């Protein structure tokens, strides 16, 4: 008996210490696009989240528990993202961060809903928050929030009577295109060319020829970041002189870096921007550049604010309760005074959509320049 006591006691101590270690941490897996067409978005989101996690852990974590955030790569593939989310769910997470690609989120959010795990996403397709899922939360505008703002700018700012649309043929692009076309119809602006492109497409020569032939007053570009850069280069090559209007995926810093001079003159609505004239956002940008060596795009802010939103809501509840977290986030408004990491006042509605100020921007000499700040829709 004495010979058994020591190993049994050692095992009990080991398991006990493992359990104690788990109690000292909170599991928040990051399931994100680290390769494939979504690599730019996903890497930014991941790095923003990592920055927030490092800051929070340096101050003791959430409710004295350090955040542990294992990362997995969806490869920008919806099927793989589903498997990765399932794997993350099997590890008993508190919250899942990501993905960013709408197509992936549409496929994997069902798993989070079934497992009752809150999911913080940077995806923008309108349908994501219209499926009755109480566990999905955005840290970016949905298309149903951003497209009306763009449409107003095209009507009032550009005074355009006709527009061409170039969009990427995935859930993100199709959702945006459908919402945009509806907004154009509501404002009596004619869509004279409707050009779909493929995710990962490299050659835009034919698409630009089509757009030039349509001769619209403005061209609305709604593709992923890398494709936006390639399109801008091709448009410049072929001498397109109509206004190129887009959303954050056309005006982000990575797009500007990839497109070079060809990005100058592109304009549009940005829900989030690292160039926003907001001191907290500027401070975040500096910290991000110092930590990662590159300028973040809007996805970096999405990841960063998502983690801080979870932190604030959890501290408000006072315990780690997934269902209660989801319930608390619905209808919650967080101000920078309450939680500096949120950067700008943000509110979530009953569907998980976010509302906050946004911006009109233009690319000038290789930099995104904010030309106007737009108020929250709720104000």
């Amino acid at each position, binding site marked *: 008996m004495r010979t058994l006591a020591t190993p049994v006691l050692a095992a009990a101590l080991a398991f006990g210490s493992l359990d104690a270690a788990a109690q000292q941490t909170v599991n928040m897996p990051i399931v994100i696009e*680290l*390769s*494939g067409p979504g*690599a*730019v978005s996903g*890497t930014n989101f991941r790095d923003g989240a990592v920055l927030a996690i490092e800051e929070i852990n340096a101050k003791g974590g959430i409710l004295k528990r350090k955040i542990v955030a294992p990362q997995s790569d969806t490869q920008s593939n919806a099927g793989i993202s589903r498997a990765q989310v399932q794997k993350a769910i099997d590890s008993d997470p508190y919250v899942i961060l990501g993905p960013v690609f709408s197509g992936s989120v549409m496929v994997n959010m069902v798993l989070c809903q079934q497992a009752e795990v809150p999911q913080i996403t940077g995806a923008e397709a309108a349908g994501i928050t219209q499926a009755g899922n109480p566990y999905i939360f955005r840290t970016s505008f949905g298309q149903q929030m951003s497209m009306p703002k763009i449409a107003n700018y095209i009507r009032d700012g550009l005074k355009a009577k006709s527009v061409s649309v170039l969009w990427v043929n995935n859930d993100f692009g199709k959702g945006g295109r459908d919402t945009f076309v509806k907004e154009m119809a509501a404002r009596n602006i004619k869509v004279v060319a409707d*050009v*779909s*492109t*493929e995710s*990962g497409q*490299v*050659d835009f*020569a*034919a*698409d630009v*020829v*089509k757009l030039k032939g349509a001769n619209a007053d403005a061209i609305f570009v709604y593709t992923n970041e*890398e494709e936006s*850069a*390639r399109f801008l*280069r*091709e448009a*410049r*090559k*072929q*001498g397109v002189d109509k206004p190129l209007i887009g959303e954050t995926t056309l005006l982000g810093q*990575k797009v500007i*870096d*990839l497109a*070079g*001079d*060809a990005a100058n003159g592109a304009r549009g609505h940005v829900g989030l921007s690292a160039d926003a004239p907001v001191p907290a956002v500027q401070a975040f940008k500096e910290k991000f550049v110092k930590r990662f060596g590159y300028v973040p795009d809007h996805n970096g802010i999405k990841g960063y604010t998502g983690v801080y939103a979870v932190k604030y809501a959890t501290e408000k509840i006072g315990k780690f309760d997934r269902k209660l977290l989801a319930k608390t986030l619905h209808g919650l408004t967080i101000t920078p005074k309450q939680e500096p990491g949120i950067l700008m006042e943000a509110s979530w509605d009953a569907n998980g959509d976010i509302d906050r100020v946004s911006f009109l921007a233009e690319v000038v000499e290789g930099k995104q320049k904010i030309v106007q700040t737009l108020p929250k829709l709720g104000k």
Partner: protein
Amino acid sequence: MATGGIYALVAIGFVLLWQTSQTINFAQGEFVMLPAFFVLAAMKFGGLGFAPAMVAGFAAALIVLGVLFKRLVVDPVLRHGVLPLVISTIALSLLMKEGVKEFYAADAQPFPAAWATTSLRIGGAVVSVQNLVIIATAVVAVVALQYFLNRTRTGRQMQATAQNPELALALGIPVRRMIMLTFLINAALVAIASFLVSPIYLAKFTNGETLGLVAFIAAIVGGFNQVRGAIAGGLLLGLLDNFVAAYLSAQYRAALPLVLLIVVILVRPQGLLGRAEERTV
């Protein structure tokens, strides 16, 4: 035309390798992708300026995609037959793609252009300087290659090696050197293609996927046993691809090369400009 010029350069490489050494290189697309990353790595890690990095990248392409490919992949595997070599090149393409993704970057990288990125107005039409440079470079490369193959002693020796290696050896032609030269020429052609497309497509580890497939089809459509067939196939596919996408349907542009391949195989299997070959049983 510019797109067709790129396809032609890559397709010529396919054909040359097949003719001289019975090598079907399914990593040809990745061969086009890689030289751009040699240049970027020389700039980022070697601290070189763009021009010296291009020279270094070109030299690295000749060594890695020419000499090392031949010595380390083709020579050991070819003695076991063509099929093992085909499978090896498929594995090599995966290795190269994943290697770049893992050790350099998974996202697209800007690649500087060595020419002006402006446009010219010629008779009311807008023509980009980039396209003119691509077409001119492709034409010069092809003309130089044709001159080399047909008008120089070494080129004629290469052709003799391609037609009948045993007889060429018996006549005192250094067959092994001729085959190595073919691999070096292929490496040079894919490096040129890489430097031409990367400023437009951006440098990314996935760039070789579509390009390799289309160039392979171009080589078959034009005629896999004729260099001029590869040129014709490349130009034809480039023109049709863009015309169909611009004026018919962009949704089906990816299907065009495959449809053309099926039609050619059914109607004229030796390719548009290829020679019918008989097989000894």
